[in-house]
């Protein structure tokens, strides 16, 4: 059982690993960090769930446009780091 499916392990401390895990849970399948999330099963309701998860963890509001402009876990993770740093 990996991190994605083992509820006994808490959320990972590392933001990128957490994002990877969240995307896997939302799309219900393992996710490639450098592949487009929308080609890996991310639906419009999935965007809402992911945005909510990011807001809960980081206090950042990301819209669908942000996710479409940063469609991989790697890109999204960088965007979150950038927004946190700039405080926007």
């Amino acid at each position, binding site marked *: 059982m990996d991190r994605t499916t083992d509820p006994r392990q808490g959320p990972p401390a590392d933001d990128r690993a957490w994002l990877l895990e969240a995307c896997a849970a939302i799309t219900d399948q393992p996710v490639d960090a450098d592949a487009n999330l929308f080609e890996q099963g991310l639906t419009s309701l999935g965007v*809402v769930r992911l945005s909510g*998860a990011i807001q809960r963890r980081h206090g950042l509001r990301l819209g669908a446009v942000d996710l479409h402009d940063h469609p991989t876990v790697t890109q999204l993770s960088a965007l979150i780091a950038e927004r946190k740093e700039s405080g926007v």
Partner: protein
Amino acid sequence: MTQPRTLSAPQEAILEAGISHPDPAAYTMVNAIIVDGVPAKALRQAATGTAARHDALHWILNLDDRYRISAGLGPTLIPAEETDLRSLDPADAIATVEAWMATQRAAAYDIWGSGPRIRFALFHLPETPSGPSTVCALMTHHLYTDEHALQLLWTEIVRRAGIPPISAPISPDLRYGRWAEASTSAAAATSARTAAEAVAQRCQTHETRPYPEYLERLPAPNGYGQQARALGPVDTADVSARLSVGPAAVYVAAVAQAVAEQTGHGRIVLHMPMSLRRTAAEAGIVGCFVASAPLPIRLEPTGDRLVQHCQQALNFASRHAHARPGLLSRSVGRPQISLAIEQPVTTRRLGPVTWSSFAAPNAGPKHPLSLQLSASATGPGRLRASWTSASLTQEQAVDLLERTTDHLNRLTAKG
């Protein structure tokens, strides 16, 4: 009911639409009434008591360990801010309230927050011959109410405040939760898919490209514009009786004619908010029951035939308003032009108490071109447009409003 609440199909659709919209305040709701003849204290107690009773006004969004969304019950103690405007001239007091409403309407709503989901504000106005005069305003999100639910709330509040002892039921109203659960059942999902397929088929031969493509507009910087014009009384009684149609068919026909003239396309798709309340019992439930329904319209050779066609299109859209939004946006495309028919400003009376609605504050467009029409046979109405800069110019928008008004007048002309 202590278990997590299931979000309804319209609530899921609003969450999706909200996250896709660049404006974080797109689905913030601000609404207000002026109540004469009731002490502000009674109004405050009635407002907070009424809000506390409706379960659907207190749902906070939760994410489970798989990031699925459900709702839990948030605080039912509703804050009510109070502002004393009694020292102001009446006109200045109203202007102060309107400015406050506009500011609130533009404020982003924290949908993932855990604080109260609805807030009240009371403004004490200069006293009138019938006694105290108070503005009662509320701020919430479209997830929690729709236009009809707001009217239910105001009516209950005035009843509670104006005629003690309270005649309204005081037990918690949990009906929206039950309706929400049914709206996302397996049977409802199948029905929503079938409805989406039927709508897609009906829209197949209609123009659904983005509005600027009809007009062959050059790209413009981001931003939006808005314009409103006052309407005189619009009496649809004659045409309604003659053609056996409702007023909405006449309004839709006027907009369709104006858009078709401007774009040169005789087959367009207007998107309209439609209620999913189907029964008398559902008509009494506070919650969000609204879905955006595509309305495929084709121009007809005469105004009468167009109005009749619009009525048929409205009937079809109403029967299929539960269509699954995700499937619709893939097959029909995202809404380009929307038309919302709003309640005109009205005054109502209950015993010695009168209350009047406030005109909704202006807001940015929900779609590339958003139109809001409120009309009355006996009093003034309003036609508003808001649009993204990438869709229309100011001149084109003004031209569209003028054309719509002209067609409205022509379609409702007597004889």
